[in-house]
């Protein structure tokens, strides 16, 4: 199935594009997608971009906030954005 991934803030600078379309296995979860993205863009491994509790990435699917366990479907648009803390 095909999904679209959109990158925001520093993820966008790291990956070098604002969005990309990917062919991924049917029915994968958000956490599986993150693993695929780390393989595809090894620079993301240096970010805290993991499946454990230290994960430091927020994810939305089709404009709605989702958890890492959420399943993806064909045509979904997934956005990745980093929580920031500065003031």
């Amino acid at each position, binding site marked *: 199935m095909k999904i679209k991934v959109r990158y*925001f803030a520093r993820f966008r600078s790291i990956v070098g594009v604002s969005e990309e379309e990917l062919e991924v296995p049917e029915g994968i979860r958000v956490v599986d997608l993150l693993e695929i993205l780390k393989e595809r863009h090894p620079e993301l491994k240096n970010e805290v971009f993991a499946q454990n509790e230290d994960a430091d990435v927020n994810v939305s699917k089709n404009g709605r906030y989702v958890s890492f366990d959420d399943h993806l479907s064909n045509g979904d648009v997934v956005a990745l954005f980093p*929580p*920031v803390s500065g003031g």
Partner: protein
Amino acid sequence: MLSNKEIERYDRQIMIFGKEGQEKLKNSKVAVVGVGGLGSPVAYYLAAAGVNLLLIDEQTPELSNLNRQILHWEDDLGQNPKPLSAKWKLEHFNSDIIIETFVGRLTRENIDRILGGVDVIVDCLDNFETRYLLDEYAHKRGIPLIHAAVEGLYGQITTIIPGKTKSLREIFPNVQRKKEKFPILGATAGVLGALQVVEVIKLITGVGEPLANKLLIVDLASNAFEVIELR
């Protein structure tokens, strides 16, 4: 009651929310927690709008703050703690409003005493430890909390309404402690700070639709404004 001078001063915004809205602003007290990059534009625009303020910060301005913390000037460096540095300027700017200050850090022990009686809390902090404390307090007392944070050309903002929206901790459960020094352009803090003020005004006057259960992310490098549903 609004004085004639107030009716004239706030004329252009009374056109938006009426004299009743302006009365509500006049009768409200808003805590600005952190008087730095976000806190400067927040306190400035809230003062302009005629809102009474409680300014909270423990630090004194340093030279490297001035690219973004526009309420602090060269004369204040190493002199006036940030709440006091902001207070004297804002009092000259708008003598109608009452400005209270607390110079120090919010803790579990003092937060009840210091934030007692505020109508809205604006999170202009630079760390999540104190943010979680604000979040807990806001839920305990049922006070809305306007969260924003910035880095570089990027920022995020959402409005927490206890009982109605997710808590800040539910949205950002585990933000990593970053290095102390983060990149930031003053104008980025200006954009997010101005958005926080609009949230406060919407909540107090009842005009418009607050960012409740919505996270607005602003990526100024790529001209992206995205509203993400949090429900």
